């Protein structure tokens, strides 16, 4: 079927080509582009007007191009007015560009790999240069985006190498599904999956050893891309900008363009060597010793330690200084007429984590080549291979940090093995109950993955006619991800099963084809012209996971399923196919007023017919009022934007009909899974509008880009929402949620100082957004993602009227005046027995990314500060330690106190409630700590200022090599926050979890370490 589609497309193309008119002879045109001051201007886009034939000027401002007499060359680049020159008999066309105070003529990537001048775009989007991303020295480039784009929130799960990172644009709108944007690389979708533990054999329904996306983390696969291969990255923020990408781009899109060879390329090499050290550690009390063996290890409510007790600093000694090195080598170039260009590059990354035995190694090999086959056909091929190996420590409660903190400080944790070489024990708890020594945990348990990935993309551009062209891309993104998670037979995690070894091989492949027929801007009358395109797309995603679990090890230290006596295999297949047809038309009036109308229809495999076919339109407009009113344009440039879009979204595969599962209970057999049927499943729709303006003043030294938006999702599909078991099932996939997202994005840029020797640029990205749940399916009171219920009784409960990032829990009961209700028998506050709302919201009030760039001669300094105001963080680690008498807040345990509140005696809601006067001494009544509500550990309104990255670089003279520089970069060097834990950027789950996920739930999480890097780059 797939092949047939491709054939049809190619056939159509050749018919189309045959109808083209006879060609004029082409010739090579060359020239030099200079600025007002006569200096060469590099990277000017030179295209043959009305075609996609084009090139860029090299560092000397020279260009080479094939064109015909009578055609017109367009010269466009950032900061200069666009110029046009006809091709005449002359072979050399030199151009002097006039610097103007506008960014509006910058050419940027828009939906579906189309390019457009900023002035024509009626939607919010923002572009980050690849060099800025690479310069941040993040192994996972997604982490470099925080603060660089207004409205983008990046949340790394932890500071362990290979930790997954989630990215959301304009906040959380989906209650249960992914809120992450679509990733596009060179025009086609790229998989950014974080492996969900639900495919592991250990997470088979009914298994007692499930991970539930808490105990382990896997990389989000976009991290396979080498940051050094990125030319530019454009963020299409709302459905308005991304509507043409369809149902997977309802949360926006990240559009990556990779580097290509240019005339005058050559060899480029760069490296970086970095050192990472952990930032901060929890403070533990050293006054009171152990009292009893609790459920996992000692409780510290005992007598004070005797004077002279020897303490071991188990935490400090545990972490290591981690070294990372990166090397990138690329060769690139192009024929002088740009008929052929190529770039081949290789990257090598070896990253160590501060936790022993954690590391990530990556090899990237990429090739990109383009060739003008004949005058009317251009072919382009990119291949991106990556091989990534990753070793992470286990995470959260399974991870070493919990053991590190509750381990007796009077015992040397480093000494983790018995003389017999087995796990050294310190309590008489069973092997499964005593918390793992952190050293044992990181040396004996492991989470290793290997990922082999190839992304290939073949593009063909046919332009035999003057009125348009036809562009077709076919690509495959395929990887094999081998995961191995070991819970050692002697570890607390594995003891119950005498060891658990999980292996899973995920073969994911996604094939995408897309064909676009472009109609060039065609003049009509009176300054009005119209252009547009029609296209179709085919997408086929398939994942096959072969998983197996081995339990009951024979030899405790030989890691192989062959060494286990209980083995359970499991296969999980998932497939989604999508067909789409789309079109766009843009009316242009005098290049200052643009109206674009788009429409797209999708046919998806995951919704029952006929509801699987759905159409959605968008309309956007851009008005460059400073061009329309030249009197205004003398003082400023300015543009107004307005856009409206709808976008549909389908369900996950197999969501409408329940399937029987093979049951692993006695003698097998079949039974339904948790999820019930929903034959009425239909697509959900988001309706969104936005208004914006882009202004610049003082010859572009001051710029503003502001957007307000409003998005409402209706008929939202909530996966795995609960119902009464009276249904015969536990979970349902139901339409019927409504959420609303509103916000303001503000980008300010300024150049306070500019000059040949010294300059200073500032860019500020401000974001204020709100997400609210308006209703839930079937009027159910609450929906939550069960993986987020990971500590105590707090979870990401969504209730109508609350933020989409709220937390619900079994919080304290209060009377009608809001005073705590006190248990008359204990003097302690009473807790709700159901999940209730107390107004906790993890969403920040606003965020601000501030980039300052200073240049002094050949020295440049780039500083990115990340500010956040507000948003709650649940410090479960603190609660866990408090319940064990380990935190400093338990030091006043002997102080008698009365908890302010009223006694629950029947009078609590009257005018004269009984005020509590029951004295509690926590040291005598340790459930003061052990039964404490999570509410006291949800830290409200967490703010921070974080030095995300700072780079100082020095450009070396071009004496022996070119483009040479040396640099030092620091990442996460400081953090100023009112959060009492280690780092408020946390995720109790991984990026695999949908909805608002476990972001802002801190349980045993390792923060991002402080990293200092240096390196050099040069070219030949």
């Amino acid at each position, binding site marked *: 079927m797939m092949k047939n589609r491709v054939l049809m497309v190619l056939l159509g193309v050749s018919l189309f080509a045959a109808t083209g008119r006879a060609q004029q002879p082409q010739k090579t045109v060359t020239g030099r582009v200079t600025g007002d001051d006569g200096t060469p201007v590099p990277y000017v886009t030179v295209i043959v007007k009305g075609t996609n034939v084009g090139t860029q000027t090299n560092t000397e401002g020279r260009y080479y191009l094939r064109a015909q007499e009578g055609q017109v060359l367009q010269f466009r680049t950032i900061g200069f007015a666009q110029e046009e020159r006809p091709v005449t008999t002359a072979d050399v066309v030199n151009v002097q560009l006039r610097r103007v105070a506008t960014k509006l003529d910058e050419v940027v990537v828009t939906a579906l790999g189309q390019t457009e001048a900023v002035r024509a775009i009626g939607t919010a989007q923002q572009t980050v240069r690849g060099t800025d991303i690479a310069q941040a020295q993040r192994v996972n480039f997604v982490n470099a985006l925080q603060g660089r784009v207004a409205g983008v929130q990046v949340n790394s799960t932890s500071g362990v190498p290979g930790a997954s990172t989630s990215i959301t644009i304009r906040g959380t709108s989906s209650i249960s599904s992914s809120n992450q944007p679509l990733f596009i690389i060179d025009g086609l979708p790229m998989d950014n999956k974080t492996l969900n533990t639900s495919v592991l054999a250990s997470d088979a329904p009914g298994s007692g050893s499930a991970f539930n996306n808490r105990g382990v983390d896997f990389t989000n696969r976009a991290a396979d891309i080498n940051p050094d291969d990125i030319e530019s990255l454009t963020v299409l923020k709302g459905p308005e900008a991304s509507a043409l990408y369809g149902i997977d781009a309802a949360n926006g899109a990240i559009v990556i363009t990779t580097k290509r060879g240019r005339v005058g390329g050559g060899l480029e090499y760069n490296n970086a060597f970095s050192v990472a050290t952990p930032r901060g550690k929890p403070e533990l009390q050293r006054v009171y010793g152990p009292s009893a063996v609790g459920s996992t290890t000692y*409780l510290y409510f005992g007598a004070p330690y005797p004077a002279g007790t020897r303490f071991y600093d188990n935490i400090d000694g545990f972490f290591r200084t981690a070294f990372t090195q990166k090397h990138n080598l690329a060769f690139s170039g192009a024929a002088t007429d740009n008929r052929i260009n190529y770039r081949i590059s290789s990257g090598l990354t070896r990253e160590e984590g501060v936790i022993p035995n954690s590391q990530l190694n990556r090899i990237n090999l990429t090739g990109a080549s383009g060739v003008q086959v004949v005058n009317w056909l251009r072919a382009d091929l990119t291949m991106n291979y990556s091989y990534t190996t990753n070793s992470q420590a286990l995470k959260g409660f399974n991870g070493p940090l919990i053991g590190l903190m509750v381990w007796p400080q009077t015992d040397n944790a480093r000494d983790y093995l018995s003389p017999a070489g087995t796990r050294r024990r310190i309590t008489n708890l069973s092997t499964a109950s005593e918390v793992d020594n952190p050293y044992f945990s990181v040396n004996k348990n492991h989470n290793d993955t290997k990922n082999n990935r190839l992304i290939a993309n073949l593009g063909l551009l046919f332009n035999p006619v003057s009125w348009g062209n036809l562009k077709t891309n076919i690509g495959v993104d395929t990887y094999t991800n081998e995961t191995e998670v070991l819970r050692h037979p002697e570890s607390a995690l594995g003891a119950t099963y005498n060891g658990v070894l999980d292996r899973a091989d995920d073969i994911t492949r996604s094939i995408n084809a897309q064909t676009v027929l472009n109609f060039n801007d065609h003049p009509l009358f009176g300054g009005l012209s119209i252009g547009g395109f029609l296209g179709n797309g085919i997408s086929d995603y398939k994942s096959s996971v072969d998983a197996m679990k081995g339990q009951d090890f024979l030899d405790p230290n030989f890691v192989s399923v062959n060494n286990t006596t*209980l083995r359970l295999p499991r296969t999980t297949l998932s497939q989604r196919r999508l067909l789409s047809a789309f079109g766009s038309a843009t009316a242009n009036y005098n290049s200052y007023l643009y109206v674009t109308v788009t429409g797209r229809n999708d046919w998806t495999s995951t919704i029952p017919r006929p509801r699987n076919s759905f159409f959605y339109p968008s309309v956007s407009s851009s008005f460059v009022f400073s061009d329309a009113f030249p009197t205004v344009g003398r003082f400023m440039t300015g543009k107004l934007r307005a856009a409206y879009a709808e976008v549909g979204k389908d369900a996950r595969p197999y969501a409408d009909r329940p399937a029987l599962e093979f049951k692993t209970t006695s003698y097998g057999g*079949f039974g339904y899974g948790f999820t019930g049927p929903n034959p009425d499943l239909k697509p959900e729709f988001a309706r969104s509008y936005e208004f914006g303006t882009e202004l610049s003043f003082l010859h572009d030294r001051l710029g503003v880009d502001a957007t307000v938006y409003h998005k409402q999702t209706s008929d939202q599909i909530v996966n795995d929402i609960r119902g009464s078991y009276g249904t015969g099932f536990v979970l349902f996939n139901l339409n019927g949620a409504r959420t609303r997202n509103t916000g303001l994005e503000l980008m300010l840029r300024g150049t306070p100082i500019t000059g040949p020797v010294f300059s200073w640029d500032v860019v500020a990205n401000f974001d204020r957004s709100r997400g609210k749940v308006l209703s839930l399916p*079937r009027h159910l009171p609450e929906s939550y993602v069960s993986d987020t219920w990971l500590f105590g*009784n707090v979870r990401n409960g969504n209730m109508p009227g609350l933020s989409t990032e709220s937390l619900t829990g079994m919080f304290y009961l209060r009377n009608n005046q809001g005073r705590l209700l006190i248990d008359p028998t204990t003097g302690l506050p009473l807790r709700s027995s159901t999940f209730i709302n107390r107004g906790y919201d993890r969403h920040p009030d606003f965020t601000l990314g501030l980039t300052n760039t200073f240049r002094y001669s050949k020295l440049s300094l780039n500083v990115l500060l990340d500010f956040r105001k507000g948003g709650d963080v649940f410090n479960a680690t603190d609660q866990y330690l408090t319940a064990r008498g380990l935190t400093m807040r338990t030091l006043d345990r002997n102080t008698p106190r009365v908890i302010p509140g009223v006694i629950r005696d029947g009078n609590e809601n009257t005018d004269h409630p009984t005020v509590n006067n029951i004295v509690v001494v926590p040291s005598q009544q340790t459930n003061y700590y052990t039964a404490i509500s999570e509410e006291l550990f949800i830290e409200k309104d967490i703010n921070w200022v974080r030095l995300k990255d700072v780079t100082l670089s020095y450009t070396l003279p071009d004496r022996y090599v070119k483009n040479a520089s040396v640099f030092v970069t620091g990442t996460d060097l400081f953090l100023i926050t009112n959060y009492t834990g280690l780092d408020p950027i946390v995720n109790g789950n991984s990026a695999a979890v949908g909805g608002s996920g476990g972001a802002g739930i801190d349980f045993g999480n390792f923060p991002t370490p402080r990293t200092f890097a240096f390196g050099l780059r040069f070219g030949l």
Partner: protein
Amino acid sequence: MVFSACSDYLDVNTNPNGPQSVSANLYLPPMLHWMVTSPQYDGRFVGRYTQQWTLPGTSLSTWDRMGYDPGSDNGGQQWRDVYWSFGQNLVDMNTKAQAQQRWDLLGVGQVLKAWGWQVLTDLHGEIIIKEATDPTRTAFDYDPQKFAYEEVQRLLNQAIVNLGRTDGLVDQTYLARGDHIYNGDRSKWLKYAYGLLAINMSHYTDRPSLYNPDSVIKLVDKSFTSNADDALLAYPATNNDDMNFWGPTRDNITNYRQTQFVVNLMNGTDFGVVDPRMSRMLAPAPDSQYRGLDPNVVGFGALTASQRPNNFYGYPTLPPSGAPSRYLFANKTKMPAMTYAELQFIKAEAAFRKGDKVTALAAYRNGVSAHIDFVNARNLDDNQAVTQISAAEKAAFLASPQIIPTDPNLLTLTQIMSQKYIALWAWGHNELWMDMRRFHYTDVDPATANQVYPGFRIPTALYPDNGGLPVYRIRPRYNSEYVWNFAALQAIGADKANYHTKPLWIIDPSQP
């Protein structure tokens, strides 16, 4: 043409990971597994209400105080399995069996349905029956217990008819594919149906107008005739889920310890004779003495390490994998759903109440004798670390007049119910708790002025929400009902803090 091609292209949404429908007998194994195993999950908690065991810790556990865990699904396993593990699967199986005239399988399905309502109503009182298994509903009304009991009778009477049929596609081989309890033998399922009906009818003792001891005796007589009829599930123990829930590998009972109450029933304190089963069922302390814990005392109280009773596997902590265990606490021990001994005690009680002491004594003796054999059989299932009760030990015990009176008129309710308690200990939680509730835990036998359950004490520090009352029911499963079907809970008063102390209809003649 393009559109039909597109349709085919998009036709990939049939779940490849599992079938939509299977042969009727393939639905059966998981349901039979849960019929036997699910009561053990809840037995962790019911076992504390009934003081079969206690969970020592740094404070008294909620269940040891006849309370519950708010916001938790603890005590809701049978709720889950009846509504979900059975649920649509049982509907589909019975529909297919009926259509294919597989009367034997249909009969087994009806027995399962009846079993589900029986155990659920005994645990929870009012339950959802009429509106159950409807995926399109969003609210489910609760049906009264009276109806639940009648529905069980109706279903079992249908099952008895179907299990008696030999026409249609009745096929032992086909049934045996899914039935690893009786290997497809419908005559044994017929006996099981009679036994379950006897259990149902025997619960009406507090409602004299509805209690008919003659029919209970008649039903028991049509049911199991020896231990060979016991409904036993053998666990294959090839993975976590098909292993005995009480086995050391499952690690579910490791921290629990036997109570003084159960030790006193067997060590001579209550009956003057040391029960030979004590050392084959209960766990000694490291000093070899058999002691039990007082659920009113935190942790192990004053006991030294060597005096603390071992766990039920016979070790102070979780033993290494493969170490031999004891009685029902081994990975591969067969677990019963119903036993001959259990039914004989039911017959004994009915005959006793009827005044037929001769029949009562004979049934009672059968029960004690059969359970001794049962203990021996179970301790051979998985190479347990205890010796067999010798014929001489058994004979000596049965000859003790404190245990088996020689004069039928000396038989007491205390003896019948205590021996039944021992026979049900560690597996028959639903019936055992029903028994204790029928006697309101501490009822006195008017004939002897002694407690029916000698020495049983209601916990002194009851759970705060109880308002000083003992527990009579478990709340409906939290994550099924307390958020998602709350209006229906309010209608039956299950939103009240002390709902779990409200007596069941079956034991409370004051309720209409």
